[in-house]
């Protein structure tokens, strides 16, 4: 690969310095963005992902190509507003940790999206603009 800078520290003229291991270790190692209420959800933007599996309403399995070194990596999930996005409703996203479904593996996570309303409580729902980002060490 062309261009390589080897450095242990980055120093700003006034703001101070930071060790580059913060940058290397703190960077996301995978991300994917997709529309959860499309016919079959396909990735719009991604890095280090191999597939999305549509498991059912508000239920997706996301697989990466470069595996993590274990199963305890960090996952950040966000989703667009559910339903009409009225004042009394919202959306929730959750990572399936295996208590009632599928625990993460070094390549795959299973995530769920929900709609919350005052009248019906929380229930699985396909929300738009789902993003999953993973942090941690790769294998």
């Amino acid at each position, binding site marked *: 690969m062309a261009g390589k800078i080897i450095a242990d520290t980055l120093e700003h003229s006034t703001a101070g310095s930071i060790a580059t291991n913060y940058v290397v270790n703190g960077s996301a190692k995978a991300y994917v963005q997709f529309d959860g209420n499309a016919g079959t959800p396909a990735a719009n933007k991604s890095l280090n*992902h191999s597939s999305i599996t549509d498991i059912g309403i508000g239920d997706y399995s996301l697989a990466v190509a470069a*595996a993590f070194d274990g199963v305890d990596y960090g996952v950040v999930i966000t989703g667009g507003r559910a339903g009409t996005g009225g004042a009394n409703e919202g959306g929730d996203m959750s990572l399936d940790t295996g208590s009632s479904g599928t625990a993460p593996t070094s390549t795959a996570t299973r995530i769920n999206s929900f709609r919350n309303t005052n009248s019906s409580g929380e229930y699985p729902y396909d929300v738009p603009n789902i993003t999953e980002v993973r942090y941690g060490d790769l294998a």
Partner: protein
Amino acid sequence: MTQTPEFKGTHLFDRLCWAKENLEGVQSDYRVVYEDSVDECAKILVPDPNWMACALQGGILPPVWVYHELAKDEAQPDFKKHTRGYLLHNTEPVEAMTEEEAIEYLILKDCPESVWKTYNEGNRLKMVICKKEQLPQTREWRNAWKISDALSLTDLAA
């Protein structure tokens, strides 16, 4: 066509970053529909466009058996951390695949082994590869989607 650098021994993540910078994503029309439980609806696997570009390009992705080896390690009761990650990076990358070969690879990588090992056994199909146009275009009744019983193993044989 963009030439793939000599990647053997390069970390897989670095190869994927190279691909993202240099290859155009390929949105495949193929979908893999499978059922791994009679009590659940059909699941639909959709290839990632950047991954598909890597598969078609060749020289980037590791052979699929590498993932199976890592899965074996992970299945051990005392598994904490991968110690054979080098298999992903040091094994000779696979050559360019056709889109159909890439789908077969992805099935072996991302579908449950219980599905692809026995997809053609039993009374009904557990897995079908189709085009996205053959699936419902909206998600109405999504949790009731099943592989049609009208599709039989005999049809496949023919």
